[in-house]
């Protein structure tokens, strides 16, 4: 095995990475930094003056939001509830639809390449369509109301969920799956026994994350006449009732925190 006698002061110490890898990584790094610097330069070219008074200016505006007017809370409870209902519905439907799509677009599960690429492309296109376009499009198709709003949320969250979950699936420990396969399990069984337990916590937390996104996306729903808290928020801003808007933001924050809390509890239970 050992061919040569090693000496403690090896005459040529190797570098930590082979030269080629170093080159490539450095190149990528500099290309990214280059684009970044260009973008920064380019975006600041229209800037007038410095950002000297920035914080002072921001303070003037922020001050107008305080103190929040919690007196509006009873009145905004209903749209908030409506928003939550729409989010629950949209999240549930997309969570269900995600399962087959995520599996089909995970390279380690779908070994049949054409199917994998097909699903992947479909999801890519789905993901690409901005939520605003979705909302406008569905209103164009279905008229105003809850349905286009919920549908927009479903399609939108489906794109996010399926991608994130398929990546989670791709990163699981393949050993248990191999063991299941070795004991003659079919694909479904392998998925159920070796994959699901590994993905479940991440799945739960991503679903709840999408739920949270859906609640915040209600701003978009407001644009298409589906109601919800986002509409009220825009309205309050429009009428310059900033303290009311702040109360709404705080309510959204509370809902986000509650979801986060539930998400953590579920993850702890599943982990």
């Amino acid at each position, binding site marked *: 095995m050992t061919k040569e006698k090693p000496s403690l002061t090896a005459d040529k110490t190797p570098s930590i990475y082979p030269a080629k890898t170093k080159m490539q990584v450095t190149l990528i790094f500099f290309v990214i930094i280059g684009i970044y610097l260009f973008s920064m330069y380019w975006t600041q070219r229209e800037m007038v003056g410095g950002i000297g008074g920035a914080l002072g200016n921001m303070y003037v505006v922020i001050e107008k939001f305080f103190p929040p007017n919690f007196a509006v809370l009873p009145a905004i409870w209903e749209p908030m509830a409506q928003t939550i209902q729409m989010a629950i519905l949209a999240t549930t439907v997309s969570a269900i639809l995600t399962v087959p799509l995520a599996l089909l677009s995970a390279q380690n599960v779908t070994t049949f390449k054409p199917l994998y690429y097909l699903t992947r492309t479909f999801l890519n296109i789905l993901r690409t369509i901005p939520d605003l376009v979705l909302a406008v499009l569905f209103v164009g198709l279905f008229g105003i109301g809850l349905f286009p709003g919920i549908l927009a949320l479903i399609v939108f969250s489906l794109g996010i969920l399926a991608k994130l979950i398929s990546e989670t699936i791709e990163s699981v420990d393949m*050993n*248990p799956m191999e*063991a299941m*396969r*070795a004991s003659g399990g079919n694909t479904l069984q392998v998925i159920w*026994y070796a994959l699901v337990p*590994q993905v479940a916590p991440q799945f739960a937390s991503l679903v709840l994350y999408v739920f949270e996104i859906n609640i915040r996306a209600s701003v978009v729903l407001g644009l298409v006449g589906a109601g919800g808290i986002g509409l009220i928020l825009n309205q309050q801003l429009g009428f310059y009732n900033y303290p009311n808007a702040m109360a709404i933001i705080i309510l959204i924050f509370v809902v986000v925190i509650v979801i986060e809390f539930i998400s953590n509890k579920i993850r702890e239970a599943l982990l």
Partner: protein
Amino acid sequence: MIEFKDVSLVYPNGTQGLKNINVKINDGEFVVIVGLSGAGKSTFIRSINRLVTPTSGSLLIDNEDILSYHGKNLRKLRTKTGMIFQNYNLVKRSNVLKNVLAGRLGHTGTLRSILNLYKKEDIGLAYESLKRVNIEEKLYNRADELSGGQQQRVSIARVLTQQPNYILADEPVASLDPPTSHQVMTYLKKINKEDNITTIVNLHFIDMAMEYADRIIGMRAGEVVFDGPVSEVSEQTFEEIYGRSIREDDLRGGANKS
């Protein structure tokens, strides 16, 4: 019967895992494969249930070339070959019983298994297997709560539950203490003899190999360098397998040299 006919395997990265293997393993044999780390022992074993697919040659099991198997055929092949892994390969987040029951997957309908509707016998069998490796009291523990040795024992129980025709074991006792190691080897040997289950085991320890094997296959750099009954193993054999004679100048010398 398992028959390797001029089987070679090249990994996608170019490593030659197996090189022109010609081996015939008869039903009911207890074969131990020994060899250095990286010799290709795991590759050999994993070819048999097609966890890796040899790139040339043909591999006959019960006179059928399994290299072309896929889908249902493959699953059937795997149902009748049980496998014990070097790294346990348990689902860490599932409990012990569920891990062991996974051994019945090939015998259980999809719907049944997904709904956890195992037959009473299956569950009993699983429990039985756990008892055989002395770990029945951890039944409801999650797999990741167990120590390494305990995890390996669970994975052995999983294979026992599968009731296969062939058992492939990739260093099944690497993480076990000697009494348990011997217990397991004894058990493997016992079912090998009683039920006539062909058993192929990778082992690092030639002494243990000598104790249990009917036949020893020595591998080195992807090639079979020794194949014969235990009685034929000699100093010469060690030299072939390990590239130098065992013990004398080698074992002590390994470190001296450096």
